């Protein structure tokens, strides 16, 4: 059996560091020791296959429309080599239009919407496309620092073809004035890498007389250009 091709390492600055001084929750949770650089084996080059139903519309619960601005979010999931990820499960979750999660631990004094749960699951098609309908989430306060507010965002969870491609990230909205103030967004040093987390308004995704559309493409780690790096064979 041939050895799996390692995944490319991140370009420095394009991923957030674990230890990020301005994001308080990292202080006691970021490991202090360097990770062990491990060889890629079948364990990391394979990934679960999910036979689960999809649920692509968060904007309606039991026939009732959620409160807020309905939007469509769509994009492609590719790897760094440009290959589409087919049949990949994309899980998303978010706060409601008022900035509150349907979650017992969210005590923000904003109304819950009985017709908004804030969770969806879709699968990419043969060209890597995913698409779901939701409500534009609201900003909400958090206790990281004085007068801290999270920019509006949607959480994304993705599985690639290898467990080493596993990704949880957040999609932000263009023009959000909170982005330049957000320690989580700013933790990624590289400006281009940060800006890739910001969706783009897209008239092609927009559906006439129904909802504005946003495009958010996601890139998972791709094959390393030098499969024999660092003598891991």
């Amino acid at each position, binding site marked *: 059996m041939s050895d799996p091709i390692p995944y490319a390492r991140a370009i420095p600055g394009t991923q957030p560091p674990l230890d990020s001084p301005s994001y308080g929750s990292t202080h*006691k*949770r970021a490991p202090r020791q360097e990770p062990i650089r491990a060889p*890629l084996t079948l364990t990391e080059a394979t990934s679960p*296959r999910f036979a689960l139903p999809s649920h692509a519309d968060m904007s309606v619960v039991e026939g009732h429309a959620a409160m807020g601005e309905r939007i469509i979010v769509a994009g492609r999931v590719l790897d760094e080599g440009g290959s589409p990820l087919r049949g990949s499960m994309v899980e998303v979750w978010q706060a409601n239009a008022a900035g509150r999660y349907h979650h017992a631990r969210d005590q923000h004094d904003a109304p819950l919407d009985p017709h908004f749960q804030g969770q969806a699951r879709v699968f990419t098609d043969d060209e890597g496309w995913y698409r779901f309908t939701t409500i534009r989430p609201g900003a909400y306060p958090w206790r990281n620092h004085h007068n801290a507010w999270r920019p509006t965002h949607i959480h994304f969870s993705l599985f690639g073809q290898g467990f080493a491609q596993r*990704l949880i*990230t957040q999609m932000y909205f263009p023009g959000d004035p909170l982005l330049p103030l957000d320690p989580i967004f700013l933790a990624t040093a590289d400006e281009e890498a940060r800006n*890739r987390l910001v969706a783009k308004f897209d008239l092609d995704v927009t559906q006439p007389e129904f909802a504005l559309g946003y495009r958010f493409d*996601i890139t998972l780690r791709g094959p390393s250009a030098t499969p024999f790096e660092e003598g891991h064979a």
Partner: protein
Amino acid sequence: MSTAHQTAGPFWHLIDFPEWADLLRADGPNAGAQGERITLQGTVTDGDGALVTDAMIEIWHADPEGRYDGAFQGFGRCGTDAEGRFRFTTIKPGPVPGRGNTLQAPHVQIAIFARGLLQHLTTRLYFADEPLNESDPLLSLVPSERRCTMIATPVIPGTWQLDIRLQGGAETVFLDI
């Protein structure tokens, strides 16, 4: 350039399906799977030794033949509870081929997501009674005094305990793959 990771935050439970912690559940992909039934459990703590009660733990492991391309889906997801504990029910994986015709000791890949983790952490669980641990290609890269952070011990037969310490003293060995 791959998309930047961001923290799962404190409200990831919207994608928690508690039944996913039981890989052998009757209505799941592995109903009726043959093998040695095991429980994997542990506690997650931070740099102060405080319980981490809002982490999401995922596991991924091979079937008893050491394969990932069979019917068995060795994937589970479990949130830590109010005591920082996670607990999975599954079947014990077999040895898995490593690179260059090596053989890896039976192991379970673990991914840890939480508020305060801007990228998820990756580690492995090995089983204390496995002779193959001595020659495992990955364990051999880990300083001997830290290997114990990746080796689960039996608390009762079939129940394996591995505590995860995110930071400090006996900090878990995390992997960069």
